[in-house]
């Protein structure tokens, strides 16, 4: 027992690649799970550009002063605000992924809010900027920020309802009312009814009855105005502040297309990487490698054949998958050529990655294990949206993702399956990665046949 244990430990110590993977892999997975758990959507980072002058945070509503900043507190409590000083700074932060979105409060926010509640115009709008590179994230950002603005709206609406109630009370019972510095004595419907009941028949001019009638006429005039004002107030109560959304990066990819792109990319990755890595390692396990490369086929030619084999197989699988998904999701068949280009270049990139793994691992089982174990974190990293983790960590994630074909393949497929974004950039990226990984595989082949 003891000797067997020592033997196994010695064997492990002589397989540094395996040991490294055994140690590093769980750490990477644990880190990814940790980030996923700790980067929940409870307090999204949102850039805030507050252009409202500090002196204009109060509005007058029905003679009562309302502090908008105080009423908007729920909004700022629900997000992690990152205050910026210009619209461009907000756009840059959204584009870089430092924040999930940006909220721009225009300088005339309170003035327009006051005017709207007084029946003098449309409700003000706040602008939300977001990054639409990831439709899942887009939906999250839209929902999150709109929900938070709605919270603020609800608080304001509550205040406005109180004002509307006071107007209605004034109309019903009468009293004094201040409007733009002038004070009016409002008769009220109750007193008007009493006056009208007291009038009977025709009233002579200049008589006391005539004056009372004039008073009633004035009330009717004011009542009409006040009722119009109440209508505006009630209209504003629904949505005191409106939200305008602007995409600063990426396009409007439908969520269904995005899901199809993810499914196709993951499938493409596993099929290609496993096949390419295993097929190359098999040449060595069959002892055929040296015989084949001894003047029959060049080493680079052999790598190209393995990449082509894996890419062709996975291209067929990927196209079949998309055809099947098109039954459930609307996919643009008119862009079929772009599907093929995205899947084809992606498959070549994954194939090159696979042969690099196969050349490093050298044995079929080790190559398959390595391909499988490496593919999962690569896929997860490629799906981390900007703003979900801290800025520096997102830069690291983005750098690592850029070094593997998953992210550019996903980007290319997203573009191919929708009308958003360009496909040329990701395809060029994939072509470069294909060349780089083929070169790495070629270098690794130097020790491929060494026992």
């Amino acid at each position, binding site marked *: 027992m003891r000797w067997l244990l020592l033997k196994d430990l010695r064997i492990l110590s002589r397989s540094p690649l395996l040991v490294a993977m055994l140690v590093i892999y769980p750490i990477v997975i644990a880190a990814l799970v940790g980030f996923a758990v700790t980067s929940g959507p409870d307090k999204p980072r949102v850039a805030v550009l507050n252009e409202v002058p500090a002196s204009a945070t109060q509005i007058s509503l029905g003679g009562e002063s309302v502090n908008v900043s105080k009423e908007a507190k729920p909004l700022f409590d629900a997000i992690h605000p990152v205050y910026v000083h210009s619209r461009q700074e907000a756009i840059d932060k959204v584009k870089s992924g430092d924040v999930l979105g940006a909220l721009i409060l225009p300088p005339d926010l309170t003035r327009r809010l006051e005017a709207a509640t007084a029946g003098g115009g449309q409700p003000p709008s706040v602008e939300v900027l977001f990054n639409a590179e990831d439709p899942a994230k887009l939906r999250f950002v839209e929902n999150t920020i709109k929900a938070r603005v709605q919270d603020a709206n609800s608080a304001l609406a509550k205040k406005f309802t109180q004002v509307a109630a006071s107007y209605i009370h004034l109309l019903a019972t009468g009293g004094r009312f201040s409007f733009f510095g002038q004070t009016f004595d409002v008769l009220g419907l109750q007193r008007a009814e009493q006056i009208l009941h007291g009038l009977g028949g025709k009233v002579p001019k200049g008589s006391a009855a005539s004056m009372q009638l004039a008073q009633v006429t004035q009330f009717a005039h004011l009542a009409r105005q006040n009722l119009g004002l109440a209508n505006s107030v009630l209209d504003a109560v629904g949505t005191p502040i409106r939200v305008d959304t602007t995409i600063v990066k990426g396009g409007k990819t439908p969520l269904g297309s995005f899901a199809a792109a993810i499914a196709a990319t993951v499938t493409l990755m596993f099929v290609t990487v496993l096949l390419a890595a295993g097929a190359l390692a098999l040449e060595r396990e*069959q*002892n*055929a490698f*040296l*015989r084949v490369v001894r*003047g029959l*086929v060049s080493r680079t030619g052999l790598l190209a054949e393995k990449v082509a084999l894996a890419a062709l197989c996975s291209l067929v699988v990927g196209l079949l998958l998309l055809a099947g998904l098109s039954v459930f999701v609307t996919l643009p068949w008119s862009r079929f050529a772009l599907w093929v280009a995205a899947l084809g270049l992606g498959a070549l990139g994954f194939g090159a990655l696979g042969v690099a793994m196969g050349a490093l691992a050298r044995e079929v089982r080790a190559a398959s294990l390595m391909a499988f174990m490496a593919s999962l974190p690569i896929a997860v990293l490629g799906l981390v949206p900007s703003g979900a983790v801290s800025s520096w960590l997102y830069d690291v994630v983005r750098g690592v993702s850029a070094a593997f074909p998953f992210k550019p393949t996903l980007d290319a497929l997203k573009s191919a399956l929708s009308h958003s974004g360009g496909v040329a950039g990701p395809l060029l990226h994939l072509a470069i990665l294909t060349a780089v990984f083929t070169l790495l595989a070629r270098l690794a082949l130097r020790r491929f046949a060494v026992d």
Partner: protein
Amino acid sequence: MAQPSATVSEPGRSDAAPVLEARDLVKRFGDRVALRNVSISARPGELVAVIGPNGAGKTTLLSILAGIQRPDGGEVGHVPARIGWVPQQPSLYSKLTVAENLRLFARLEGCADVAGAVDRMLDQTGLHDRADSLASTLSGGNRQRLNIAIGLLAEPPVLLLDEPSAALDPRQRERLWDFIFGLSAGGTAVVYSTHNVQEADRYGHNVIVLADGERLFAGSPRELERAVGEAGARDFEAAFVEFLRQRGH
């Protein structure tokens, strides 16, 4: 197929020009010198046995002759494409049939008549009745014959065999040497490494003795016996061991 002789003591065609010639080969692996100025040649039909203790440099020598490795010194006077190379472990695709393996390598070799080459090798190896069998289902002896047949598809004038009879039982070994001897009789120069000294004595026209990367002897088995005098009179194996002992190995 030619019948094996009990003992081959004369070179194949001593008047012909060598079809394989390498001079002063040097190979280093780090600080270790695997070959030190080793020369070798073979004429058409000649059987050259390379023998020596473990780690003597036999496989390294054959690998350099086959073009698998580059020497650090010396020169190889032929192009690797004209050499048939058969590694010690069967180098073929176990999930392909015998005929499919032959057909694949015939195409890679650029044979003009692929079907003819496959038929010819099936005839020579006696594997016609197993042509459609997966290579993985063949016995060790038949796998080795297929392994050699692949090396012969391009009809090379020289065949390099690395430990061809290792892991074969005596009956399989006998059939393998029947086959190899037939090749030699047909004019193919065969250079083979072996741990079985009796195979060098029995089939080799010439013997090269390597030890610690150094060529200690090149000549016929009888000349090796004579080189050790009375001490090697018992048999060739005894002569070989005595020869190494006298030279400090």
